[in-house]
């Protein structure tokens, strides 16, 4: 019978792998490959308005707009524009005393701190514009290169940075290794000139009555070099892990030109002097960061830990945990907890004594370089809409404490955001 006769011919047809050729044909039939489709999604734009408010101190309004696009050749471009508008009062570095104190602002006018009050310079006001661009492009099948630029400008500070790196995908893209370098050049244009470190701030309430501020020019510079090593690993289908190491070495001007340290005699309770702070002219930071993301059925748990140590004696630990809970119908809720603790820099002092002044090389009264413990409690909620759009809102409470009153800062952070494709 015909059927039997023909059967051997069927089996003689080669059983080779045709799925690759067929897959290519299928892609051109459907007319859109997965990547081309993402590109058709256009620019993904994230916009947000953040409002940061410290009790009795600084208030910041920060609009941020970022846009990202993946092109058909799998390259990616990320752009980000940030505006910062800060107003309010900032601790000037002096200690809290049970007596009235008078200080000179950078512009030369005088201001007071009442007895028992944190010395705050009320003239603090700044507007910052920052722009970042990062481009990543496939190079070979497993290598991608990335390069970026960042520019930041304030009326007394300019920063220009560039970075470049390589990303290496291994192990069917379950592993990605990153090596990157960054360089940043900063210029500080202090209002009223760069004060000579450890010289007096004019004040009528101190024992040593300096009348003028000693300056060393109107601006100074600092450069920062970074090396970044990253390891991203898909551990299981649900668990992704990231381990990063960062070495950051900076040299140049590290002072805050507006900050002072009090010279105080605790025996006589007399304020001898206010000295402009003096920090080392270099800083080397080492940090590691470990992040884990775990996907439950719909929810995502994230847990991050960061350790930083530097040659100023500052060691810090950060723990960050968030849980994104999908509530259905596109709604999600995301509680967030963050704990941060830091040890003081070797040259941080609440005040220095008159006896110490002669041998003093470095000193700061800036609470940001003292012992600190911070807690952040946050809640974010949002709703996904069609066409990839999403809106969200975030409220966070930030509580900071340290060894001295200036470090006691409570802040409220609120943010609204909207994501859309354009």
């Amino acid at each position, binding site marked *: 019978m015909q059927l039997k006769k023909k059967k051997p011919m069927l089996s003689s047809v080669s059983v080779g792998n045709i799925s690759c050729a067929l897959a290519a*044909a299928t892609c051109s039939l459907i007319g859109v490959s997965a990547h081309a489709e993402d590109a058709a999604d256009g620019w993904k734009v994230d916009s947000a308005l953040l409002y940061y408010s410290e009790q009795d101190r600084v208030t910041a309004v920060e609009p941020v707009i970022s846009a990202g696009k993946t092109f058909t050749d799998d390259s990616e471009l990320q752009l980000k524009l940030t505006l910062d508008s800060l107003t309010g009062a900032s601790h000037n570095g002096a200690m809290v005393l049970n007596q009235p104190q008078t200080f000179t602002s950078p512009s030369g006018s005088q201001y007071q701190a009442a007895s028992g009050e944190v010395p705050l310079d009320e003239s603090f006001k700044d507007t910052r514009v920052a722009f970042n661009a990062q481009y990543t492009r496939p190079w070979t099948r497993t290598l991608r290169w990335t390069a970026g630029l960042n520019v930041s400008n304030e009326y007394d500070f300019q920063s220009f940075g560039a970075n470049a790196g390589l990303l290496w995908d291994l192990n069917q893209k379950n592993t990605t290794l990153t090596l990157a370098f960054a360089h940043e050049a900063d210029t500080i244009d202090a209002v009223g000139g760069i004060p000579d470190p450890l010289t007096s701030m004019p004040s009528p309430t101190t024992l040593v009555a300096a009348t003028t501020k000693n300056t060393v020019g109107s601006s100074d510079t600092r450069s920062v070099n970074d090396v970044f090593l990253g390891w991203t690993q898909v551990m299981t289908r649900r668990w992704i892990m990231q381990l990063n190491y960062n070495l950051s070495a900076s040299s140049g001007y590290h002072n805050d030109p507006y900050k002072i340290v009090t010279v105080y005699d605790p025996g006589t309770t007399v304020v001898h002097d206010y000295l402009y702070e003096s920090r080392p002219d270099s800083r080397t930071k080492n940090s590691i960061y470990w992040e884990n993301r775990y996907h439950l059925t719909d929810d995502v748990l994230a847990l991050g830990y960061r350790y930083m140590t530097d040659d100023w004696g500052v060691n810090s630990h950060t723990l960050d945990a968030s849980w994104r809970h*999908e509530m259905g119908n596109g709604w999600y809720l995301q509680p967030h907890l963050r704990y941060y603790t830091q040890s003081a820099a070797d040259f941080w002092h609440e005040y220095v004594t008159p006896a110490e002044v002669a041998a003093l090389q470095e000193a700061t009264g800036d609470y940001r370089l003292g012992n600190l413990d911070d807690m952040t409690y946050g809640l974010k909620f949002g709703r996904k809409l069609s066409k990839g759009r999403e809106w969200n809102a975030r409220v966070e409470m930030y509580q900071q404490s340290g060894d001295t009153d200036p470090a006691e800062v409570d802040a409220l952070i609120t943010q609204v955001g909207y994501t859309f494709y354009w």
Partner: protein
Amino acid sequence: MKHSLKMEKYAQGWRGRFTAMASPCEVLVRGLPGRQARAVATVVADEALRIEQKFSRYRDDNIMARINAGHGDWVDVDEETERLLDYADTCWQLSDGMFDITSGVLRRAWKFDGSDRVPSAEEVAQLLPLVGWKQLERRAGAVRLKPGMEIDFGGIGKEYAVDRALALARQQAPGTPLLVNFGGDIAAWCGDAAAWLVGLEGLTAGAVAGRFELRNGGLATSGDSRRYLLRGGVRYSHVLNPLTGWPVLDGPHSVTVAAAQCTLAGMLATLALLRGADAEKFLRAQQVPHWCLWGEQRHETVVG
């Protein structure tokens, strides 16, 4: 377009149901409010009906009817039809002629209705001159068939519709996990969110023949569970060898394949069936997840 789309809520989101291509169809949408889920499902149902109306061989008012009624004349075809013809050409070449969209005329002799009416060798032999992809002539934007020849996209159309519908739905709702299921032929996307669970459940014993997680890809089944002839203890599958005009014997009754797209999965499943007893050997060589049912088993694809 007119369709019977009905939305219902289920544990993880919204399910839209409608009927198209003689199959129950569904689209699953996770994480979107009802109104937007309906908009996504509408896009899917519209695309299913559009492709059905354009390429169904059971209509007399579409491009297929015009091509098949060409009586030896050139018939103009649009870009989408050309792409499907290109695909059919690739499949014909890669299968050494075993997949052939001109083989539908053999159904004039073969009526797979579960009966024992096996045609005579003469009946089949008379039809063979009308079968053969290489007898079809093409030029840019047009196609010509020999009088009496017919083509149909029966082996491609439904899977193609699934992939197209998913692509359009993804444009409507970027980033949203979606699953499109037209009578067991499935395409899904979930990004990096939780995968879709797909079960291939045996109807007779209730046993699970296969169960796996579908992230971003397709799944398709080819089989003859309900379409065969039985005579003298021989089961004549509806899978016909276009070179002989006779059914492929000794093959599995059903093949399910998972691949990057539903269309690719469906074609690999169909090509496997055409290999008869070598079906599994063929699928292993393609290195794709696959499930073959031999004997009297039947299965149904269930998604969640």
